[in-house]
């Protein structure tokens, strides 16, 4: 049949394309039904929580909902001079309801975040407003406290008008938008998050590096040893996987503490003096040691699976062609393990950047990471929207790393097994 006729027909006259679709339809539905549970699971346990986290992190409806009339009246106010009478009236009416419902405290707190000293002004207003007469609210309110004559306070209220805000994200990188709406850094003594971000990336980077340096020889040994020994070694690598993370971290605490086994050993061989035992825990050292040990298998396994596929005859070929063992290794063997290195490093780095339990237990003050800060806001300050914002920033960071990796190495080069 020539191609000019366009459509090829099957024997019963239906176009081939269509009958192919028909015959494949059942299989496609079957295939979809097979993955449907997983798809549903992913949507419920992954997409929805992330969406919720995002909306929570930018949500700022609380103040908006508490002062509906005020914000409606403020729509036409340019914020240069004191607002007109309607705004004062609307604010008085909104605030009256809040006081009546005993929810004024929340507004006081929120507005105090925006402008220091707002709380006392509002409290005073709450007491005095009971005696207010109808009409000319502007005069009456301004009489309550002289700060009501300051346009700054009214601007502070107006700034909270949008029901969405990115202020939590700014806070995550130690910045905020000041009274003029400009984004500036917080004062130097209050910049804690940026230190934590840098420390998190630093710890993740070095843990990845240590894991790589330790895992490469192990994986090579695993891939080249005879089956009898490599199985035993593999069990040694996997054994930590079968132990609880908490147990492993706790055993590091026993080992690393100042009166612990490692320090005892150092004293015994005379490396350090008994009264000068180094602190190896509750600082970065402890975090490095414990995290490297715990994440090591994640580096060994992808490396092993790649090395297993590299034929030993390649190294032999390299040597027989005149390359020294070192040259043969760096020119032939090493480039072939890059997919495994990429997979292992990406895996360890991403796991390390969000690690929580180990730094919380052995990290102390100088060894805690951003995830500990997130947990702190989840559990202690109950500032969930800030925790959500930082969680999303972490997620974005991981995605950026993934993107960079894809540009540099190519994700299709990853081999996990």
């Amino acid at each position: 049949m020539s191609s000019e006729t366009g459509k090829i027909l099957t024997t019963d006259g239906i176009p081939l394309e269509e009958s192919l679709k028909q015959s494949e339809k059942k299989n496609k539905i079957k295939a979809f039904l097979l993955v449907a549970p997983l798809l549903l699971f992913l949507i419920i346990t992954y997409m929805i929580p992330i969406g919720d986290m995002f909306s929570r992190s930018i949500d700022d409806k609380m103040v908006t909902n508490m002062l509906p009339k005020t914000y409606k009246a403020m729509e036409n106010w340019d914020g240069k001079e004191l607002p007109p009478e309607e705004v004062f009236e609307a604010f008085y009416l909104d605030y009256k309801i809040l006081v009546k419902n005993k929810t004024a405290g929340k507004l006081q707190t929120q507005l105090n975040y925006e402008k220091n000293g707002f709380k006392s002004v509002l409290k005073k207003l709450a007491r005095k407003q009971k005696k207010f007469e109808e009409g000319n609210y502007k005069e009456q309110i301004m009489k309550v406290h002289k700060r009501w004559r300051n346009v700054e306070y009214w601007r502070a209220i107006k700034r909270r008008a949008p029901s969405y805000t990115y202020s939590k994200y700014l806070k995550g990188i130690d910045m905020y938008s000041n009274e003029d709406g400009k984004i500036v850094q917080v004062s130097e003594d209050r910049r804690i998050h940026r230190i934590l971000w840098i420390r998190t990336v630093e710890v993740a980077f070095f843990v990845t590096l240590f894991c790589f340096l330790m895992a490469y020889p192990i994986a090579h040994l695993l891939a080249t040893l005879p089956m009898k020994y490599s199985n035993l070694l593999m069990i040694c690598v996997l054994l930590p996987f079968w132990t609880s993370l908490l147990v492993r971290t706790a055993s590091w605490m026993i080992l690393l503490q100042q009166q612990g086994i490692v320090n005892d050993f150092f004293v015994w061989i005379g490396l350090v003096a008994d009264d000068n035992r180094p602190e190896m825990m509750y600082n970065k050292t402890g975090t490095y040691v414990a995290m490297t040990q715990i994440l090591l298998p994640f580096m060994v396994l992808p490396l092993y699976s790649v090395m297993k596929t590299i034929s030993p005859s390649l190294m032999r070929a390299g040597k027989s062609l005149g390359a020294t063992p070192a040259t043969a290794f760096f020119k032939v063997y090493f480039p072939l393990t890059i997919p495994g290195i990429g997979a292992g490093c990406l895996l360890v780095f991403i796991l390390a950047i969000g690690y929580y339990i180990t730094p919380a237990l052995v990290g102390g003050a100088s060894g805690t990471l951003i995830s500990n800060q997130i947990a702190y806001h989840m559990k202690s300050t109950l500032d969930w929207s800030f925790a959500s914002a930082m969680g999303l920033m972490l997620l974005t960071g991981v995605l950026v790393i993934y993107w960079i990796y894809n540009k540099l190495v190519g994700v299709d080069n990853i081999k996990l097994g």
Partner: protein
Amino acid sequence: MSKKEDFVKFDKVDKSYDGKVLVVKDLNLDIKEGEFVTMLGPSGSGKTTCLMMLAGFETPTNGEIYLDKNPISNIPPHKRGIGMVFQNYALFPHMTVFENLAFPLKVRNISKDDIDKKVDKALSMVSLSEFGNRMPGQLSGGQQQRVAVARALVFDPSVVLMDEPLGALDKNLRESMQYEIKHIHESIGVTVVYVTHDQGEALTMSNRIAVFNDGKVQQLSSPDKLYEEPVNSFVAEFIGENNTFDGEVYEISNGTCRVKLEKGEIIANPISVKSVGEKTTVSIRPERALINPKDKMDNNQKGKIEEVIYHGDHTRVRLNLLGNSEFILKVPNSSQNLDIKLGNEINIGWNSHDARALDPK
């Protein structure tokens, strides 16, 4: 420049992996410069071990290997200057064909211009000039094989080792590659040590063949001699087809001997039998026995045809002869004397010279 007689020399080489079993036993082997020597043998006969010892990936347990009169046991592989073609090609999958070929030159710090020239020359030698920028994975098996050969030759090694290089190719390709490798060897005159378990390959390509069995060289000679004049029954059995009769010598005189079988007797050529009463296995090549011979032959027997198989260029006939029901004849299909039919009795004759009385099986 005269060719050196013992360019590669195995001198009383033993090899054991576990300290209990010798894989190679007391191996002595001299290879001439420019020669194509094949190590042929069944798997586990020690031939690949010999090759690996020569390449430097295994060390002899005892004895010494000499390359151009220098002992090489203590020289690491990368300093031996021996090219090698591996069983599965061992091309570097992350390098292009060009980079693969340039690799041995780069590690020798040869200038870039010379590298380009040499690689181009080597690629054209295996007629792959167009393929320099391809990755090995984009080539067919035969092309990969040719790249591997070119890579082993590009740095002008004195010896090239090939470890069953054609094992992964299909039959037709394997045959054409055999000729190609043979022609390359003839044109550049490099010494080649080739390992295979395929006797056809060995017979086609080699100047000399070393037949290995049980860690020992059973026979080292040219292909025709190996086929026509095997020195023992293993070689006779391993190379080509072979009809055998087990019997006992009862008379030896003037270069012939009489061998008594269970039924009847044969006049044979005493190769490894010395005296009367020795047990022997007589080996006769299928094409040496003729049907209704016109010339006078000193062995004449009657046999009954049990099976006829048509093979295109020839017909295989299985006979029951002197109590051996596995006696094979190869009859060219052009011959006219064909009363070859199942169940017929026919006259078979052969010369006593072609019936070789070897060691008993």
